[in-house]
């Protein structure tokens, strides 16, 4: 049994110069057979394993990761969390996730630095303003907090935004979700890993899945760089590599992998207390607790698995940032990086069963899956344990591309976060 993290354990360990902390998770050798194997130890895979144990009592589970846990998009994203989606299906899914976030640090006994600092989405023309008010109303009808702000209210809420009327892209108003915000991305992976491990789940890093073993339409296990591992059920949550894994099972997905870039500035004193995003000039930005401005924009326009992007995308992003915040124009950039995101035609995820019995896929989160980490793991665990989707994810099947009932969230998710 792991000792709990608390102010007292912190003080106790300080007396020993922090040399005696328990390791946060084991690094076990893989067993020959598991009830469930999860492929991919990003936040979503680790959350799936955690909820399999917590909600469904399934603990004979391994999470296989080709690199190190949290080294994919989980450790590369700009950490925006919100639930203000337009369509009912998405609103319920993301709101379920946001509700889990609200108690997650306590549940996992790990400080996720979840900060509900609010999320401001700007409108720059009359059409956008009307569309934004439609969204605010739709979102409120689903019982989710959302409010419309005039430009005067925007100015009062975030004084460093350039709200002057003569600009090329004047700010006409905004929507605000006060319960939105940010969380510490690494801590999410570590917190779920530690809590899953505490419930007996094996997390196996440096273990790449290279194929599936299947017999009469049913999955029997996975071939890996560390040998065959048998499994009653296999859940695949590999973000940008979804098509590669689907190909190993002879399946095709409607997904294309693209780079998404992010960057941070040098740290400065607190200057931006909320998340600001603009779909029209195309940037979103927040300030980390370390003081760095964290920002991102849209995907690079071509398929890639290279975890890096092109410079013109960065230039556009910075132009947009300076349009909104002239005050940031002299900050230095410290780091820039890319992750590979799994872009789905309707900008909504695919979470469910596949034509292969016992094989489940969770992918297509694209540019916006961090906010969904707990909710995604929660519904995916249900789907795997019960062999059928939960009410919250039954609209997000792969079959929707056959019958045409897409959940088109481009306006909400395809552009900004």
């Amino acid at each position, binding site marked *: 049994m792991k000792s709990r993290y608390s102010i007292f354990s912190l003080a106790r360990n300080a007396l020993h110069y922090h040399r005696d902390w328990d390791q946060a998770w084991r690094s076990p050798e893989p067993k020959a057979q598991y009830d469930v194997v999860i492929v991919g130890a990003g936040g979503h895979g680790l959350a799936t394993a955690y909820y399999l144990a917590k909600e469904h009592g399934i603990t004979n589970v391994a999470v296989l990761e080709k690199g190190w846990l949290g080294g994919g998009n989980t450790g590369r994203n700009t950490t925006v969390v919100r639930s203000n989606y337009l369509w009912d299906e998405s609103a319920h899914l993301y709101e379920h996730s946001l509700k889990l976030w609200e108690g997650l640090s306590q549940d996992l006994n790990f400080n996720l630095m979840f900060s509900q600092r609010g999320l401001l989405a700007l409108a720059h023309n009359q059409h956008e303003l009307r569309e934004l008010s439609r969204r605010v109303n739709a979102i409120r009808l689903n019982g989710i907090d959302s409010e419309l702000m005039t430009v005067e209210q925007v100015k009062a809420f975030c004084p460093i935004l350039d709200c002057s009327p003569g600009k090329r892209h004047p700010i006409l108003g905004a929507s605000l979700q006060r319960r939105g915000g940010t969380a510490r991305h690494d801590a999410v992976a570590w917190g779920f890993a530690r809590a899953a491990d505490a419930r007996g789940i094996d997390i196996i890093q440096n273990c790449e899945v290279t194929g599936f073993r299947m017999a009469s339409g049913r999955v029997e296990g996975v071939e890996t760089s560390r040998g065959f591992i048998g499994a009653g059920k296999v859940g695949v949550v590999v973000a940008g*590599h979804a*098509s*590669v894994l689907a190909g190993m099972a002879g399946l*095709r*997905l*409607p*997904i*294309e*992998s693209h780079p998404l870039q992010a960057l941070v500035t040098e740290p400065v004193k607190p200057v931006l207390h909320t998340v600001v995003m603009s779909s029209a000039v195309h940037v979103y930005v927040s300030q980390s607790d370390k003081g760095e401005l964290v920002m991102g924009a849209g995907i690079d*326009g*071509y*398929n*890639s*698995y*290279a975890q890096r992007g*092109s*410079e*013109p995308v960065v230039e556009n992003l910075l132009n947009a940032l300076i349009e909104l915040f002239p005050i940031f124009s002299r900050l230095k950039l410290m780091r820039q990086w890319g992750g590979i995101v799994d872009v789905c*035609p309707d900008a909504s995820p695919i979470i469910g069963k596949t034509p292969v019995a016992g094989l489940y896929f969770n992918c297509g989160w694209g540019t916006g899956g961090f906010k969904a980490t707990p909710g995604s793991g929660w519904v995916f665990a249900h789907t795997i344990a019960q062999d059928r989707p939960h009410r919250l994810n039954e609209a997000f099947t792969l079959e929707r*591309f*056959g*019958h*045409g009932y897409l959940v088109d969230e481009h306006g909400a998710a395809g552009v900004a976060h």
Partner: protein
Amino acid sequence: MLLIPCPYCGPREEVEFACGGEAHIARPANSDRLSDAQWSDYLFMRKNPKGVHYERWNHARGCRRWFNVARDTVTHRIYAVYKMGEAPPSVTP
């Protein structure tokens, strides 16, 4: 930044181009007799390979013509550029 050799204008910077996604997806001739699964395969399903990708590009801020590119999605190396309607060349990475 990619340097893309337009077959009509020669090598130009990526910012002059727009990527049109996977090439050689032909609209099925018998679309009235397709099943939902076949139709969805045509409309939505993509190869998305980790490796050589045959894709369409448009020289949007140049000659404005479409052409095909064989490009590696891991190294971003361009192996071949060929015109619309031509068969994809086989490339060995």
